[in-house]
């Protein structure tokens, strides 16, 4: 009886110590601002440079290239390699990213997976070396929306890639979709050092009646889970982009990046049906795409108050560690809606104990 009581007391003590330690960590946990660059020419203009500097964005996740299956051979093939600048800010940490389509992992065999890991790493390394401006990376990131059927192949790829990185003291991170974070027992835990929780694209994009598929509070609430229990340390990515969703005959046709209401203000061509919803009155080209009379457009974007609202939902569910808060994505059009004050509000929300 005595020993049982001692054990209980020990457990309580242990829990108390843990709670104290956790609290202490939380008060000192840092939120490190970062941003994604997901275009094919990385050459921040003056607006972007000012925005990066003002918001002390010391980390930029730069998409280096995509990997998809070659239409002719059905082999993994690099696409859309980024053009890197000759000069870059030396005090910024650049994380090379590679987007790999899920179908790549549904087609390739084991030996090809290992070869792909080597090729991806070699190409990234060559691009860093050839740029002359990028410092040697401390982390690289892979983006792939893996599924149950591709998990084994994808995780093998990651494990193989990680072998190449560990010897060079480079961390490997991956993007984690919300459903993957919520159901890790079903989707698996990738064999990497960190995960980037992508808190966006949560609504039903192809449904004409969806209000905002990028982010909305009710959909966000459905996806929430206790991220502090996720077996990997997590960073967090939040959206700051906007787009137009084009429907023809009530079917989703395409996305038009950075589309804003001002581009639809000419009533000869567009009729506003409801907030953020328009009908094409007269066929016309818009942002390079030909729109037919009768097409419907839904504008989706992010406001600071929505982001703060959702961020407040996420915050209590995060582990009390330092993490990168990455904004998707760097573009003169998107950052103009998120000036210094907005970014600071978000950072403060996460930093406040």
């Amino acid at each position: 009886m005595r020993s049982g009581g001692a054990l209980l007391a020990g457990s309580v003590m242990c829990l108390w110590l843990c709670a104290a330690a956790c609290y202490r960590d939380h008060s000192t946990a840092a939120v490190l601002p970062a941003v994604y660059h997901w275009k094919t020419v990385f050459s921040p203009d003056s607006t972007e440079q000012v925005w990066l500097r003002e918001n002390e964005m010391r980390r930029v996740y730069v998409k280096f290239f995509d990997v998809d299956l070659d239409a002719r051979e059905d082999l993994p093939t690099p696409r859309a390699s980024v053009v890197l600048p000759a000069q870059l800010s030396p005090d910024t940490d650049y994380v090379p990213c590679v987007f790999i389509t899920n179908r790549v992992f549904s087609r390739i065999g084991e030996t090809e997976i290992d070869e792909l890991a080597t090729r991806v790493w070699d190409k990234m390394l060559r691009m860093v070396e050839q740029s002359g401006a990028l410092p040697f990376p401390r982390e690289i990131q892979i983006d792939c929306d893996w599924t149950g059927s591709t998990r084994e192949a994808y995780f093998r790829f990651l494990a193989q890639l990680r072998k190449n990185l560990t010897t060079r003291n480079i961390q490997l991170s991956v993007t984690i979709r919300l459903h993957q974070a919520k159901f890790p027992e079903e989707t698996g835990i990738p064999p990497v050092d960190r995960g980037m929780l992508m808190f966006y694209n949560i609504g039903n994009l192809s449904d004409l009646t969806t209000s905002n598929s990028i982010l909305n509070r009710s959909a966000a609430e459905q996806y929430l889970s206790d991220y502090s229990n996720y077996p990997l340390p997590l960073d967090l990515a939040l959206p700051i982009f906007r787009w137009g969703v084009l429907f023809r005959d009530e079917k989703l046709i395409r996305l038009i990046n950075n589309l804003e209401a001002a581009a639809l203000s000419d009533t000869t061509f567009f009729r506003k049906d409801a907030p953020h919803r328009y009908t094409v009155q007269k066929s016309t080209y818009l942002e390079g795409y030909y729109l037919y009379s009768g097409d419907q457009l839904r504008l989706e974007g992010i406001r600071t108050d929505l982001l703060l609202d959702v961020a407040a939902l996420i915050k209590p569910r995060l582990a009390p560690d330092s993490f990168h808060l990455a904004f998707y994505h760097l573009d003169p059009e998107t950052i103009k809606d998120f000036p210094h004050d907005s970014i600071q509000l978000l950072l403060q929300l996460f930093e406040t104990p």
Partner: protein
Amino acid sequence: MIPSNFSSSFSRHLRFSLLVSLLLLVLPLRHVNGCIFLGDEFEGYSFLDISLIDDKLPFAPYLVSFASIANAYYRKADLRRPSNVEEWSERHCRKASTDDIAYLVYHAPVRQLQELKRGVLSKKDKPGFTLLQNAFARFIYEEQCLETIDYLLFARACQPHVVERDFWDDTPKDIPAMQELINQGKALFLRLESHYIRLRYAYQIIRLAHYMGDYQQTLELYDYLMPKIDADPSILDSWILGHKAGALMGLGQNVEASYLYSLIFEDSPSRRESAWLSFRITTDEEWEACLALCLNDRQRAGLHVLRAHGTDSRLLEEMQHIYDLDPGNPNLELLLVRELQRLEKELMSVSPKSDRHIHRQSPPKPRDIAGKRAVELLAFVKNCSTAGKVTQPGLWQMAQGYLEMLTGDFYFAARTLEAASGDLSDPKLRQQVQGLQKALEIQQISTLSDSLEREIAGWYNDELFEAFPDLEPLLEDKLARLYRESGHPGKAFRIHYPLRALKWNPDLAIVEDLIALCNKDRLTPLEKKMVVRDDGSTIINDLYDLKASALLARGQVEAARETWKNIERSRWDDYGAFNPFVERLKPCIDCPLPDSVTTFNKGEIMERLIRMEYDAKADPEQSASLFYKLGIAWLNMSYFGHAWEVMDFDRNGGSLDWASTRGSNIFPAYNSPLGYIENFDLSKAQDFFNRSMKLAKNPELAARAAFMGAFCEQQVFYTSGKKYPMTYNYFEKIKTEYRNTDFCDYIIEECKYFSYYFNR
């Protein structure tokens, strides 16, 4: 990070189809757990014969799935080589086979080309026997074609710089070497006598400059070299123009480039796809500027044709523009057929994700937007039909009739198609109209009679049913609907499904209808197909067997026996022999019965069951024992016993696992709307075990009955979907009331499950 590709490509669809086919081969006939309707690819009816379209039209090869043009382009072998070889052959009076030409142009080692050149330069240096076996090499040697062999050597030198590279290869292009080749080529070009060879040099040089990314030089070379060539029209003209267009695009002059691509598209089959892919107009101003570059309305209409073939283009709008500019444009018919195909998919189709069984019961309602589009297209088609400006007025009239049919205006559809059929000289179009008329006739059937059924039976031999394979499912779906509406569920079922699909889960209304049909005096040919075998006998005994087995499975023994008595006693053995009365404490489905065991046919089993129950009630001395035997029989005839075939016709070992999560005994089957049933119901067996337990004076028998009751209790728990906590009422009874029996000692030894319960 952002979803960017929404359209499924043709290749993916093809692969999916292959996967489905493979699955169908691999999966058992009826059980496709989890993906139950995967095997049925029914997507609706199509009655368009796409061979109506002139296959020489630029887009004709992509009529079915032009959305995947890019994919098709990349997947197919390079079209340039065969057309290039063909032109070499033509320019050399077909003195050599295309294989010989292809070898020398593309594959011969440089040393062989040099060997040939030495031979051309000096008669003493005759090329080797092997080389001269090649007719093209022999021609060059005999005709002393020094310019040709020099060109082939130059082209070979250019090749490493222009072939497609491994995408992972980041090594930069050798720009100085490419420039050097341009300089060499230019110098050689000016000394050439043959204008055809000049054209070939120009192609190599301009292409090198384009691939170097030196767009300005590309244009300068084009302007410098091309006026100096006076050759007959060649495929190279379009190829060279393509490089000029590419350079213009590179310099941001996409309007001029797009105009050139539209010309290449029209003129050059080998560069058609790449021209279409490269065509790029991004604003209204650019579109207007591109139209302004066109020399005539045919070219202007061509721009609309290019735009019309975008993945999701609205064809009617583009067709209206084309018609206004160039009503005789043959692409109009192609676009018309393509739009008809789109509307067919909407208005005559079910969603691929839907299952055909459901569609047969209640056809899906087409989207309103599709009906609206059909009406709009109909107005345009009527206008074109009557104005008399289109190339194939008969095709337009056919389209009008079909659109009237699609929009439900059957009266006008019949009238239009009748008028169209009158003066058609094109046999394909005539057959198309006849196919539509037949489809219309099927859709207009409102009531059935024996005489009409006899007529319909003859349609199956009609050549139209071969030419338009979807007429058959259209007809059968229509007949099924009418049969159902007129109270003939059996006929409605059999028009689509084999008798074995009914056995998987017998529907008594269907069975009764088919029994009535078997007893009908004069069957129509269609009805004969449903219930008469090749030897002339009907399937009536099978139906009685089916009905009796189903009734027995529902616990209705007397009704089952009465049904069974409709089968002549001499045929009772035709439906198997079983013995459900054999006791097995360890259930085993597949273990054979000992040879010494007497077996019974189904009729005898039914009679025995009835008699045993009567005796059990009548004789208190035997009741406990007989109730126990009845319990054993009902357990053995259920899904869990070795005599399951008394009450069922098929059994899936995996059903139990599935039932444990679903809590149902009916499972979907991909090729039957009824699904398949498993006889999990153990209520009758359990009831008999309870009665035996209650009446038994011998505790050993009571313990046995309790143990079998425990088996039933456990299976009921699993098959109910585990909706409530597991109970151990029977185990508890054995443990508390029959613990001193030999049988209890026996099962403690033999049944670890009970042993655990007993000792815990």
